[in-house]
């Protein structure tokens, strides 16, 4: 039995934000009360001055295995998740082969289970081979464990195919996650189109390339009465479109990444390829709109779009580098500092965006510390200030633009089914 004492428990699922103790038995929460008395058969954790939250869920991660194990593996990705304070991660299907068949889904699930670190929820592709042509076998894939469907990395270009995907998903109540990018409009763009792209002489990606598809897919969700989740919203107008759709009653949810609310296109100056990400880093006006979207609930959750790449792949000319940021191990302090400490979100809103909301979108029985539920817990030290050191990342992807940043509010403990698997950045396995 594990007794967590004196922590500030923040659980949006029960509307709790107070100092209560948590008793855990057989991996589940058995009691939640003020001042639970310790017994000799209990391991007692005194978490005074710490924030205790239901385990964080990252619904947008690239684990790269199978196929790109030089970038990341299921094992290193799970370790990175635990170091970052995440007990559950949903992984995107752009592996090799693509996760469009039972074999890949089962491989991911089996390996993740064998390691017994973070929960891994594989996302299958919407179309076979992510080619945007024929639908994947939604029913069979869902049955074998696919948590959602996405062609992430690409938009389903053909509007007719996307419409059929949304229609077909409805009978399974399956979630479709849309990566919104008009690839013809993006062309050879590598960063946000604006003054900075002009100064740097880099090809630009206009905000409209994202907004056009957000709008299209929301209208298709409206047409089909299906649900849709918009991945990594990055623009002001994108937030507006989602806000208006929610008002009309469209079943749309959305996520934002830590890099999109922490950085602007100014970060690209100096041509650091770790700032090359898709969608690109936008303007301060967009950042403000994204934060406002989190405040008013237009944007439901925070997801990292953890996209690890090997060093040699990123240490090249800007145009040649792949898109992506390794995000699992910096997400929590970035959110803590830039959203909570900056006064934009309450503690409850922050934990909701990192845990309760993504669990609800994915339809998993997590994101809560209610009695009887699995005891997945993330502990944050609000006082801890330290410098990001990518050399210490568990992820194989060291491609972070935040290396060297001093951040406050780090996850210091990750508890999975009542077992402490990470403490002060060290994995206990």
């Amino acid at each position: 039995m594990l007794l967590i004492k004196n922590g500030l428990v923040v659980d949006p699922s029960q509307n709790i934000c107070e100092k209560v103790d948590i008793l855990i038995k057989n991996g589940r929460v058995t009691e939640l009360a003020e001042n639970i008395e310790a017994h000799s058969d209990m391991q007692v954790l005194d978490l005074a001055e710490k924030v205790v939250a239901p385990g964080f869920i990252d619904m947008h991660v690239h684990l790269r295995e199978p196929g790109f194990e030089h970038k990341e593996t299921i094992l290193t990705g799970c370790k990175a998740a635990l170091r970052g304070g995440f007990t559950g991660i949903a992984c995107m299907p752009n592996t090799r082969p693509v996760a469009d068949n039972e074999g890949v889904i089962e491989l991911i699930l089996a390996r993740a289970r064998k390691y017994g670190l973070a929960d891994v929820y594989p996302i299958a592709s919407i179309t076979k081979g992510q080619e945007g042509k024929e639908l994947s076998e939604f029913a069979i894939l869902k049955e074998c464990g696919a948590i959602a469907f996405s062609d992430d990395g690409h938009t389903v270009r053909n509007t007719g195919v996307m419409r059929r995907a949304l229609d077909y998903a409805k009978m399974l109540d399956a979630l479709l996650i849309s990566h919104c990018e008009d690839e013809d409009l993006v062309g050879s763009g590598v960063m946000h189109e604006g003054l900075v792209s002009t100064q740097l002489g880099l090809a630009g990606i206009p905000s409209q390339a994202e907004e056009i598809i957000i709008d299209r897919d929301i209208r298709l969700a409206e047409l089909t009465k299906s649900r849709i989740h918009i991945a990594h919203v990055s623009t002001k107008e994108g937030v507006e479109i989602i806000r208006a759709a929610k008002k009309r009653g469209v079943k749309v949810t959305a996520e934002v990444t830590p890099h999109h609310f922490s950085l602007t296109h100014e970060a690209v100056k100096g041509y650091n390829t770790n700032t090359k990400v898709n969608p690109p880093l936008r303007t301060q006006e967009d950042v403000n709109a994204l934060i406002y979207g989190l405040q008013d609930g237009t944007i439901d959750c925070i997801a990292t779009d953890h996209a690890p790449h090997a060093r040699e792949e990123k240490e090249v000319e800007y145009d040649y580098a792949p898109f992506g940021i390794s995000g699992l191990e910096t997400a929590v302090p970035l959110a803590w500092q830039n959203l909570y400490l900056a006064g934009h979100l309450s503690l409850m809103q922050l934990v909701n965006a990192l845990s309760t909301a993504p669990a609800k979108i994915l339809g998993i029985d997590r994101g809560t510390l209610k009695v009887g539920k699995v005891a997945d817990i993330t502990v944050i030290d609000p006082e801890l200030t330290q410098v990001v050191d990518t050399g210490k990342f568990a992820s194989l992807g060291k491609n972070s633009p935040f290396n060297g940043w001093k951040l406050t509010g780090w996850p210091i403990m990750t508890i999975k089914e009542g077992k402490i698997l990470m403490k002060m950045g060290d994995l206990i396995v």
Partner: protein
Amino acid sequence: MGIKSKDLISLADLSVEEMKEVFMNAKSMKDIISRDIKKVPTLRGKVVVNLFYENSTRTRSSFELAGKYMGADVINISASSSSVAKGENLRDTAKTLERMGADIVIMRHPVSGSHHILAQALQARVINAGDGTHEHPTQALLDIFTMMEHLGSVEGKKIAIIGDILHSRVARSNIIGLNALGAEVWVCGPPTLIPSQVEKLGVKVTWDMEKALEAADVVMMLRIQLERQSKGLFPSTREYAKLYGLNERKLKLAKDNALVMHPGPMNRGIEITAEVAEGLLSVIEEQVTNGVAIRMALLYAMGGGKGNVVD
């Protein structure tokens, strides 16, 4: 004096004073070029590497001759015939050259910002001979030097840069240099070839070539790459030439003694007619000579590895 910045990647790396010093020295370098024996020992024992990842006749030979006139040992490496073709990355190639003793590495590269990789990896000084659609600082220096030789100063002068501004590294560097020296810079081209928010760089923007030409002191035509047409940026070279080609009739809108410039190589009959290119107002051939002089002056100012950086 010398140049404070280790590398010359953007023209913004030079202060106005440094630019002016380069211009002053370039005058003396021009004398050397006109001599019978075009060689001074200033850079004897120094190694200059021309690393070219893109084809170039003008810039490469200009740097090569500049280095040789100054007495340096110059070698040329082109991407097609080197280890690059075997897949070596840029940093490794640069490191290799440095270990062989390069003091100055001059690079042209098709990707914007590539020089930052070199600048960070090398002790040797790096000079940008054109990076993607970013900058071409030595071209701007020779352009401005040419203008100053004729106009005295560029301050308050109307400089019209006409053509494919979007993809032009020449335009970007000229905008920086000319703004720093107080010129009034206009850029002109079809909207498809004007970069986003370019007006925020402190230039006037027009799609109307006549407006750009009106009372201009300098008309700088840019090369239009013909493959832009197939990418849908303009419908045909015929229409491009009609709207943005410089001919004698349009040139009359500029000041009587306006200068006509072009960084070369020219598409005669498209962005500029042969009559204008060879006309009385054209300084296009002078630009070439001045290019060598400017590069000599730069190599002189930067000619000794990091040890020569003035603190």
